[in-house]
């Protein structure tokens, strides 16, 4: 390698390093080996993770959230008492060695019930979030990408936003609990009903955010370039649009889990959620309210779990939002 060649290579590396953000400038100087253009490769996700780790609250929340998930998934294998096992002689017991968190009015172990309840609550939160986010990004991307569908889809979104959601949710759950319980069994039927009801009524925010981002993306050069080489619409959306709106979708998804968990426990609290022998955190709280004067801990424990989980999820969402915002990243 001659001196000029080496000098050229060094110059280029410098330029690539200096303009790693502005893609337009690097395009003028094509690297010899594009894979290793900037020396050490830095993936976007590692950057996001690095930024996320510096958000102390979000990291604590992540650890706590993982601990909660372990508590409800692995916990039942360690603490093997059946949550529905009725031990009438041990009813209303306080914190003892046999029952670390006490028992309820039928002598069912609270620790086991909290694990079982959390499993359902978190499952509802995750599933409802997946439904809402899928619907939301589908509608958002379609509305943003296809100009002809924009107006009708946005009208639809506004229509849904104008619906009084909690009353409607209550209505849907009361009206359709019986038939669904009959066809899918009481637990599964209620699960399907609640998850789809929450999912169908909480996709609007995600749709609006995604649409806005897609509209902005469509004006960018790389979309124009992709279109000019004849990329069909479906590949355009999957390869070029979706990956670029992933960060707002992820933030909306995290916050969606929190809302779904709260909504489910609110429904359970109003007596319109899961059947009594099928505990969720909201249901446990609701069942304990009648005896809260004698046994306040039975109300406080499930409530604490709900609040803690939602708090963690909200903090994680906050951290994600900061980490994914390139304007804040690197500060």
């Amino acid at each position, binding site marked *: 390698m001659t001196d000029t060649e080496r000098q050229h290579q060094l110059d280029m590396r410098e330029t690539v390093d200096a303009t790693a953000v502005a893609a337009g400038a690097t395009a003028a100087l094509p690297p010899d080996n594009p894979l290793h253009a900037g020396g050490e490769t830095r993936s976007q996700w590692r950057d996001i993770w690095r930024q996320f780790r510096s958000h102390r609250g979000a990291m604590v929340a992540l650890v706590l959230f993982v601990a909660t998930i372990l508590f409800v998934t692995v916990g039942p294998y360690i603490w093997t008492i059946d949550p529905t096992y009725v031990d009438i002689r041990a009813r209303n017991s306080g914190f003892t060695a046999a029952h670390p968190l006490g028992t309820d009015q039928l002598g069912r172990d609270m620790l086991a019930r909290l694990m079982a309840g959390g499993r359902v609550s978190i499952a509802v939160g995750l599933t409802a979030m997946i439904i809402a986010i899928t619907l939301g990004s589908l509608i958002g991307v379609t509305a943003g990408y296809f100009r002809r569908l924009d107006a009708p889809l946005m009208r639809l979104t506004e229509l849904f*936003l104008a619906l009084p959601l909690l009353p409607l949710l*209550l209505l849907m759950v009361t009206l359709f609990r019986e038939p669904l319980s009959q066809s899918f069994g009481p637990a599964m039927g209620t699960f399907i009903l609640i998850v789809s009801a929450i999912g169908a009524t909480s996709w609007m925010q995600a749709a609006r955010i995604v649409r806005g981002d897609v509209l902005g993306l469509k004006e960018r050069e790389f979309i124009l370039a992709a279109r000019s080489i004849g990329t069909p619409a479906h590949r355009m959306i999957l390869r070029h649009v979706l990956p670029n709106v992933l960060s707002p979708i992820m933030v909306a998804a995290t916050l969606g889990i929190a809302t779904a968990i709260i909504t489910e426990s609110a429904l359970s609290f109003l007596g319109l959620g899961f059947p009594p022998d099928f505990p969720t955190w909201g249901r446990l709280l609701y069942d304990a309210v009648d005896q809260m004067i004698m046994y306040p801990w039975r109300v406080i424990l499930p409530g604490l779990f709900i609040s803690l989980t*939602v708090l963690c999820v909200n903090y994680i969402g906050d951290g994600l939002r900061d980490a994914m915002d390139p304007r804040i990243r690197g500060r």
Partner: protein
Amino acid sequence: MLTFTIRRLLLAIPTLLFISLVIFLLLEASPGDPLGDVPLTVPPEVKERMREALGLGSPWYVRYVLWLKQFFWVEPLFWFDQAFGTQFSAGMQRIISFQSRSPVFDVIAQRVPQTLTVVGFSYLVGVLIAIPIGILSAYKQYSWFDQLGTFVSMIGFSMPTFFTGVVLIIIFGVKLQWFPSVYDTTLQVRDWDSFWAQVRQMVMPVTVLALYNAAQISRFMRASMLDNLSQDYVRTARAKGLSERTVVLKHVLRNSLIPVITVIALGLPAVFGGAIITEQVFKVNGLGQLLITAIHGNDIPMVLTLTFIFAILIVLFTLIADILYGILDPRIRYD
């Protein structure tokens, strides 16, 4: 601005009609039977006549149009008559509740004051504490006050109101016995004693709701203040020697309040409908509680009318928020 308002009002009509149709069809598709509680010993032909009497005999579209007529024509006429002593609505059928057999709007009118005093007052308190907190934590960003405010507001909207309500009842209602845990709606304020009783029973529900509302609004306030504090006009204001007080409380605050006011307006419909859970916790028999009992009792006219009123409020306040935004911020042009 005016054309925008008129256009939006015209657009709101099909939206509301569609929403009412959705709610109506949802109720129609329900398997619940308003006559479900009638004993089995009642002969079928009598039951059929009871159906007729409830107006359930005709097909759904007839009943839907009839309900629309009652809601948009008969009821306004009735209230007009009440106000001016005229006789326009004489002989017209108002919307009748299945449960109480009295006009739906009379029941709603009885419940509105309860909801408005408790929920409305708590919204006011929430806004009043949220705005100073938002201003301070933005002005001293990353200070201990800001960190604390962020943490408290995170907790505020992570704790569901049914949990905070129940915890407050356990601590202040049961252990300390400071406040009554059940809201007594029959209490009438006549003298200082009854006024004091009213204040005491309002403390807990108002605290719960105010905490929840303040948590959300203070976040908005903080974000909006932060946006404005880094603007050039703030530096200019400081550079020309204005006092820090004037800069923050006159220049920055006014501009930051613009988006916050719209957020507050958007939250107002929830004052009527969203406090269902808190009303249930403290046994306030307001609109939310009315809705729950109506849902449980298959009282179709009541559920339909109440949900539709909530929908009208949401549409109305969204419109108000948009118009306010246009009035307050001269940079926004709708036309």
